[in-house]
């Protein structure tokens, strides 16, 4: 029997606000434990939450970017459950009236445009962290509340994803969108982007849903793909052998690529949601939304389409260049100084990316700013220098912050275009290669390239190719 997978993803994106969602504490990652804590995020008696407008703006940005509809009145609810790192005994989240409803995330799968619809987007606060120190004789747990109240945006997809590969592409596209919007750094390793997956399988053609399991602890996009593949295969094996899939929550282990049961359904919670009486309903206005709309940048997929249609770049190039907002910006700024899109794309995808890779400063801190690279490429495009010299120059520019023209002048890398300078050299080349001259004159005009090469070698590549060609042609003809 053939099976298909039915996958829905719940993605938590940590918003890049400076302060927490309900208080003024800092959200910076990696601070000393319990140093970013105040009565509000600690849930001390009498402390009250006050909503951070910036978190709302970021959520609205996302909703608009994915064509969802903004809930003009959304309600914060309490999700009640006991947990040691949940100081209030409840998490403030959104329940039946979220800030975003619907929307979709689109991506390209082998040249085919696909889209996955979204159920909802909502805002909530993060919980703290329980630390279980190992290597101590006593058994104890430490609580770090720094993460309590960090703003999260939860993006819930419809169960429309049909394969681990689609899940991968969906997540990749989602990550690109939040990064382009500047609302999340997309770092799955640091937990800025977290994903839980609901998975079930059913025979192809069946419309009823099978029993689903929930896979948690997915901390890389590749990990999601691998975990889903594992879990789908496991479910197929169970069903094929005549057994039933048990509804449960699984933890994915990156170490061995397997999923392990976390808790069974008997422990399932009754969260006893209630509208949080400490927070009045969030009332958005058309004006508010219009303001956010105006700040909305171009989205990665739209950008790719524009690169393909307007700049005639291959889809692959467009995908690479839009893989991060910083790179796309670098590309476009370089393009402003040199209009040959393919030349610019090639250089960025090879020379630039090779050097940015593994560099903490990233593209934004890259030594050769886009304007300087643009001038260099423009010199190549207008044949003021050769590509070979260009690469040499690029090396110099990595360590030398001056404009490319200054480096060219200092290193004497300016092309030799003067016929009087090149004349003697060409005469010498002709004199040194009588056989080739004879063959050329006998009609093997393809040998012109050989002579050009000799001149280039003699000048270290600086000879202007056009002038060299012209002079060689006339001198080889003259002596006839």
């Amino acid at each position, binding site marked *: 029997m053939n099976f298909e997978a039915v996958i829905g993803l719940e993605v938590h994106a940590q918003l890049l606000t400076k302060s927490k969602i309900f208080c003024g504490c800092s959200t910076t990652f990696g601070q000393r434990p319990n140093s970013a804590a105040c*009565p509000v995020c600690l849930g001390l*008696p*009498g*402390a009250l939450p006050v909503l951070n407008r910036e978190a709302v703006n970021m959520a609205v940005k996302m909703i608009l970017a994915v064509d969802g509809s903004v809930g003009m009145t959304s309600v914060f609810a309490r999700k009640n459950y006991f947990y*040691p790192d949940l100081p209030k*005994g409840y998490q403030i989240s959104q329940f039946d009236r979220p800030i975003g409803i619907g929307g979709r995330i689109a991506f390209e799968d082998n040249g085919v445009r696909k889209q996955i619809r979204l159920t909802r987007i909502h805002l909530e606060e993060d919980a703290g962290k329980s630390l279980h120190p190992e290597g101590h004789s006593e058994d104890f747990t430490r609580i770090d509340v720094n993460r309590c109240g960090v703003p999260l945006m939860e993006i819930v997809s419809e169960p429309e994803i049909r394969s681990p590969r689609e899940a991968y592409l969906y997540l990749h596209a989602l990550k690109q969108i939040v990064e382009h919007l500047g609302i999340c750094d997309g770092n799955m390793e640091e937990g800025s982007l977290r994903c839980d997956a609901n998975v079930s399988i059913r025979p192809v053609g069946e419309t009823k849903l099978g029993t689903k399991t929930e896979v948690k602890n997915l901390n890389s996009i590749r990990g999601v793909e691998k975990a889903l593949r594992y879990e789908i295969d496991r479910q197929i094996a169970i069903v094929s052998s005549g057994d039933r899939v048990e509804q449960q929550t699984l933890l994915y282990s990156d170490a061995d690529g397997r999923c392990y049961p976390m808790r069974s359904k008997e422990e399932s919670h009754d969260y*006893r949601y209630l509208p949080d009486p*400490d927070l009045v309903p969030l009332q958005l206005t058309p004006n508010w939304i219009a303001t956010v709309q105006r700040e909305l940048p171009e989205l990665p997929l739209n950008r790719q389409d524009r690169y393909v249609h307007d700049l005639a770049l291959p889809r692959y190039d467009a995908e690479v260049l839009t893989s991060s907002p910083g790179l796309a910006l670098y590309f476009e700024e370089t393009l402003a100084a040199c209009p040959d899109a393919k030349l610019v794309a090639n250089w960025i995808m090879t020379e630039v990316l090779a050097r940015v890779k593994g560099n903490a400063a990233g593209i934004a801190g890259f030594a050769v700013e886009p304007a300087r690279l643009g001038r260099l490429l423009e010199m190549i495009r207008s044949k003021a220098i050769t590509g070979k010299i260009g690469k040499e120059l690029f090396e110099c520019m990595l360590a030398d912050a001056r404009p490319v023209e200054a480096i060219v002048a200092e290193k004497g890398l300016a092309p030799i275009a003067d016929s009087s300078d090149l004349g003697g050299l060409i005469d010498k080349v002709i004199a040194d290669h009588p056989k080739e001259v004879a063959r050329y004159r006998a009609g093997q005009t393809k040998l012109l390239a050989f002579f050009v090469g000799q001149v280039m070698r003699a000048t270290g590549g600086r000879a202007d190719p056009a002038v060299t060609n012209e002079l060689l042609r006339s001198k080889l003809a003259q002596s006839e």
Partner: protein
Amino acid sequence: MATALQLRQQFLDGERNLGEYYHELLNRCEDVNHRLNCLNVVTSELAEATVAQLHSKLTSGRPKGKLFGLPIIVKDNICLKDHPTTCASRILNGFVPPYNATVIDRLLADDAVIIAKANMDEFAMGSSNENSALGLARNPRDLERAPGGSSGGSAAAVAAGLVPLALGSDTGGSVRQPAAFCGVVGLKPTYGAVSRYGLVAFASSLDQIGPLAADVHSAALLFDVIAGHDSRDSTSAQQSLAGAEENLKAGVRGLKIGLPREYFAAGLDAEIAAAITRVADWLKREGAEIREVALPHTKYAVAAYYVVADAEASSNLARYDGVRYGQRAAAHDLLSMYTETRHAGFGAEVKRRIMLGTYVLSSGYYDAYYAKAMKVRRVIMQEMLEALNAVDLLLTPTTPTTAFKLGEKTEDPLAMYLSDIYTVSANLAGLPAISVPCGVDAAKLPIGAQLIGRPFDEPTLFRAAAVIEASSR
């Protein structure tokens, strides 16, 4: 005893010495508390430090606050920085807030002197002050009777003449009911008029801090100081509030005052009914127009109130788990640590309400109880607002009986809950309401008249209350 206004003037004029006054007052605290058990802690050091500051302010030319030199007692569910805040519960043993409630900041900014934290029903749940882990408080009018709850300690301290001013909190009548039992003035402000920041929550959508005072003028003075927007409380009203003290003497001429007929039905003590009728006559004599109005959904108010309040309480009290502060029970696993801590920490009434609240919020019963109670709440609010379109104020009894005997109702929670029957509607609807003494019954026990007003119309409440006060003297 001097009123708050007179006392302030005496300090300013140098007729009374701050240091001597407080020396004597702090000594009196002990005596009064010995009789009434109305104070959980006397904050002598804070009081003395404040008095020293005020003293130097007195000799300099700096401006003096509205409450200059006035002693005040605050209910022990209001956070006072660096002082234990107990909510009269064992579970908060050892909890010392590192912050002040907004009302505390405002009191101090206006030169009040905080001298003590008042006894109360545990987590403000109760109508007699008998649910206190620190022992019951007594009514100074009759030591065998309850001072009312849950702000019983605050009301008793004022009634005993210890202080002219105190703060309580009112979730279903917890300022007004003890005010009526003890014969003092008590206001439940409009929801959102006074910041709840630093008030340990019982039921967040109903709680409101309110003044208790020996006289109407003092209550108005205190209300003006504590009211106003607070950016730390999202439910705090943005609008600017009219001063209550300014037009206090404007009288009631031309005001329309409604008597809701449902508030004068079976269960109301005949002497109280007669007293409120008399109050209506006084107001009429002073130029108000008295009308009967109908509030047919009043009979559902107590039921809706206990569902909503307990639901919120079950959620608000979840944070007391023994993990970060307060006392923690020794246990071998997490769940037992929670259950043992909460078993030992909470009193019977609090547990009863947490269980009720948990039940009404559980997914199987949510629609039948919580969702329905919220609908009833909306209907009650609309009905009251409509009535208040036709009249400026509603006049009702504050309580169905005068102060009952200690122990009389402790075995019958339902009977206890019914002592809030006239007060809970104002909380459900978020309306301001005041209880003002209007006489005594045959046993010389005080009777309270309640006025309910339009949102943020505390000034009109105080005008009418002043007339009642003047007439009852």
